[in-house]
């Protein structure tokens, strides 16, 4: 199949039949459709030049190819009366299910990362990147503890002339709830279910970190590498932590984007509380 589309209601996502990657996204409610893709970046955690990456420090030394990944993604399409879903396996330790519901105007990205392999003796930071044809240039917006959105500009500081020594880490900002880009026609945003770091290094990109596994200490006081060889027990050797998360992906018109973004943000901050009990008739 040259391309596979999943769509329920207003949101439609198209996937490329040869690479298995997402290729386009549309929101019929606002008459918007555009090229868009989702991929993962594996940053090589620097352990040299005098400053290691570590618990306090993100200092990547380039990126690594996605390990153990065949050159194409196998897809599993799920279609049902309430929602449809596309399941992609980027690597045995890296999975993404993209879900669209019939009565929702945004998509849910359900990702599972880990245990991150480190047989190559390299620490790694894993980031998800949503790329699109939103002409955002070098501007993006990050939330301030869930309140107003602050404008960020790549390789720029408003209060002094930045000498760029860390082209990636120097453009990562703290995110609590949202990362957004827009041009005069459309807005795209990701809504997070936890705090993390994020950026937009290229026009149309939304990138945020989902997991990291570091093999060296950064000499800032922890005195231990962020490597999870013991997760939960002292002497057992643990393969490493798995992380699962759900991120909302909003695509809307430039005027309606902020409203939809805040609606999805409120839901991420206050997930439903569900309780059960047996009924004996």
């Amino acid at each position, binding site marked *: 199949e040259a391309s596979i589309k999943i769509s329920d209601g207003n949101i439609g996502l198209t996937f490329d039949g040869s690479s298995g990657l997402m290729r386009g996204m549309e929101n019929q409610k606002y008459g918007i459709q555009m090229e868009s893709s989702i991929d993962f970046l594996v940053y090589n955690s620097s352990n040299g030049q005098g400053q290691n990456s570590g618990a*306090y420090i993100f200092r990547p030394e380039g990126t690594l190819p996605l390990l153990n990944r065949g050159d194409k993604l196998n897809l599993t399409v799920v279609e049902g009366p309430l929602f449809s879903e596309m399941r992609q396996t980027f690597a045995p330790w890296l999975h993404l299910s993209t879900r669209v519901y019939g009565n929702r105007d945004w998509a849910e990205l359900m990702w599972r990362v880990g245990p991150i392999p480190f047989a190559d003796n390299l620490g790694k930071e894993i980031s998800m990147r949503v790329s699109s044809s939103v002409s955002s240039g070098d501007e993006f917006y990050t939330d301030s503890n869930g309140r107003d959105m602050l404008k960020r500009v790549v390789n720029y500081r408003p209060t002094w002339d930045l000498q760029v020594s860390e082209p990636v880490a120097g453009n990562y900002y703290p995110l609590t709830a949202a990362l957004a880009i827009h041009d005069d026609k459309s807005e795209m945003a990701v809504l997070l279910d936890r705090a993390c770091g994020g950026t937009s290094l290229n026009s149309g990109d939304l990138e945020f970190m989902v997991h990291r596994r570091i093999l060296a200490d950064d000499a800032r006081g922890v005195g231990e590498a962020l490597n999870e060889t013991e997760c939960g027990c002292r002497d057992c050797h643990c393969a490493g932590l798995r992380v699962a998360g759900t991120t909302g992906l909003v695509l809307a018109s430039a005027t309606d984007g902020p409203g939809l973004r805040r609606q999805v943000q409120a839901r991420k901050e206050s997930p439903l509380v569900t309780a059960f009990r047996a009924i004996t008739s």
Partner: protein
Amino acid sequence: SDVLDELENAVSIVLHHDAITGTAKQAVADDYAKRLYKGGEGAASLLNQGFKEIIDSKVRGRGGDDDGVIRPVEESSVNDGDVLQRAEGLDLDNDFVQCPLLNISTCAFTETSSRSKQNMQVVVYNNLAQARDDFVHLPIGKESSVAVFDGAMNPVASQITGLDPSVRPGSSEDVEDLGFAVQIPPKGLAVYYVLFQNIPQNATLAQRSKTRAVSPN
């Protein structure tokens, strides 16, 4: 309730920058997680008591709307006790439980209930100040025949989907996901019934989604 103090103490401890950013040794991070977990468990049991109190007080006829959606007691008007009782004389004495690992489709209660065909009452709480349409997803045993009803025993459409193997590595085979839409009032509760037996005639049985693998060209 001093049960909440335990959660409050845990949250105040993890406001330390080392807890928020993870700049701590593994053992310290594990300790933060343990404190939060114990505090969260205590608060959940308090919520469960609250759910039981609010819902059972409806059954004893202290009001509520007959759409099966339960609003805070002081706002309720129409007695929806009949509504709950209209569901074939349900005995609702059991306590509520919650499942913190629902996000990775893990819940012993719903999985065993479906396998033993134990009907369930599900309560959903919305903490937002706006009414909310959302979805609830529950793990159930494979091949369950199931129907969902709202609090007024109106049938609700639902979907059964096989789990992606990576959601629960090594234990996804005999579990499926039951998803259904819910409507909840602002700062309010809504009640649903998930029935595996004695399913009324007017039921809409859960539909199984179609899954197909696509190998890239």
